[in-house]
């Protein structure tokens, strides 16, 4: 077997096996000795060092293994991990608006306002980098406090939280008055 042919056989075996293969196993399959196999491995190593190779050889103590060159990871990421298309769903928007206006706020308070468990929504917003932990509330259970991030400001095009469209007690009072009126009307009848 020439050096080239030997290298080809080693390559084929390592390719198929995936995991590391012991030099002694290679020698056995090729009916030769470890010294010879090491020569073939050396040949492969040189071959893989060239620019036109995307794979490399990993030499362990008694075994060898093929691996992808590290420089290729950026392409692998693109093909194996296509970025997820994320969107702000209604429930995320709702949760975000509460956190934006009521920060610092605990999960429980968000849940109270929305009327539904909002843990998942809060977690997603944290993942997206729009919401962050601000610390813990000095209260039983020391719940986490959440607030918006700089990324939130950047994404919504504001410099500071003061720039959020105002929402005041005025409005809240209005709602209250409205509601009371409705009740009174109802009682009048």
């Amino acid at each position, binding site marked *: 077997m020439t050096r080239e042919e030997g290298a080809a056989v080693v390559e*084929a075996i390592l*390719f*198929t096996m*995936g995991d590391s293969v012991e030099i002694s196993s290679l020698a056995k399959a090729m009916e030769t000795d470890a010294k010879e196999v090491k020569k073939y491995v050396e040949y492969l190593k040189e071959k893989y060092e060239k620019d036109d190779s995307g794979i490399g050889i990993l030499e362990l103590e008694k075994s060898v293994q093929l*691996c*992808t060159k*590290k420089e290729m*990871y950026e392409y*692998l*990421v693109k093909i*194996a*991990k*296509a*970025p*997820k*298309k*994320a*969107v*702000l769903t209604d429930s995320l*928007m*709702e949760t*975000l*608006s*509460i956190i*934006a*206006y009521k920060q610092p706020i605990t999960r429980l308070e968000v849940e109270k*306002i*929305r009327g539904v468990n909002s843990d998942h929504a809060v977690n997603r917003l944290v*993942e*997206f*980098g729009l919401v962050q932990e601000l610390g813990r509330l*000095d*209260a*039983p*259970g*020391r719940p986490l406090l959440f607030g918006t991030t700089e*990324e939130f400001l*950047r*994404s*919504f*095009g*504001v410099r500071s939280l003061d*720039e*959020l*469209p105002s*929402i005041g007690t005025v*409005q*809240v009072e209005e*709602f*209250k008055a*409205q*509601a*009371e009126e409705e*009740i009174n009307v109802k009682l009048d009848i």
Partner: protein
Amino acid sequence: MSLEVKLQVFEGPLDLLLHLIDKNQIDIYDIPIATITEQYMDYINAMQRDDMEVTSEFLVMAATLIDIKCKMLLPKEVNEEGEEEDPRAELVEKLLEYKMYKYMAFELKDRQMDAAMQWFRSRNIPKEVREYEAPIDMTGLIGDATLSKLNEIFQDLLKRQEDKVDPIRSKFGNIEKEEVDMDAKTLYIKAYIREHSRFSFRQLLEKQHSKTEIIVTFLVMLEEMKLGEIEIEQESTFGDIIITSKKAG
């Protein structure tokens, strides 16, 4: 002619017919229908005798063969172009087509054996790539959401909340339902004990807001004492209770 061979299993009636044609070395275009029909029927009978399943397809073919045999005895029919029609023509065509695919199956099998010598590799994504979290496309995420939309949603929410409040009952004052999470409380107190090696019970209660919380705190203290985590001293009745952690250095 009888069948002395051990019965072979055929894929179907066409397969059996091809076998008989082969065996007799007959020209497929000029099948001696009488002979073949006879052999075919022999085979079917042998199948029944051997308790082999004779599917309806075999019986339909038997009927077809007998039909052709009869037609062969009659004067030949002539088609529109004045050519004599061979009653066997349709069967021959079917046999040829079937034989062709049988032959191709054979060719394909060769190819398959050849291709089986090429081996593949299973997917093996490096850990670094597997663990990589794709960045979030912020522009896509935000989409057409704007601050005013955020504001609108929040106002809607507040309105919904106000709607839920019954204005008459709400004037009666607050009747709060208290929920104290025993587990959370225990964790909190344990942490407090760790942080303060010696402290007074009153000091601890400063952080508690309601009666239920105070009771739960007291229960946790008793539990901790039972477990031997803490020691308790009280100088006088109603005096402050001093708690010492046993674990503290």
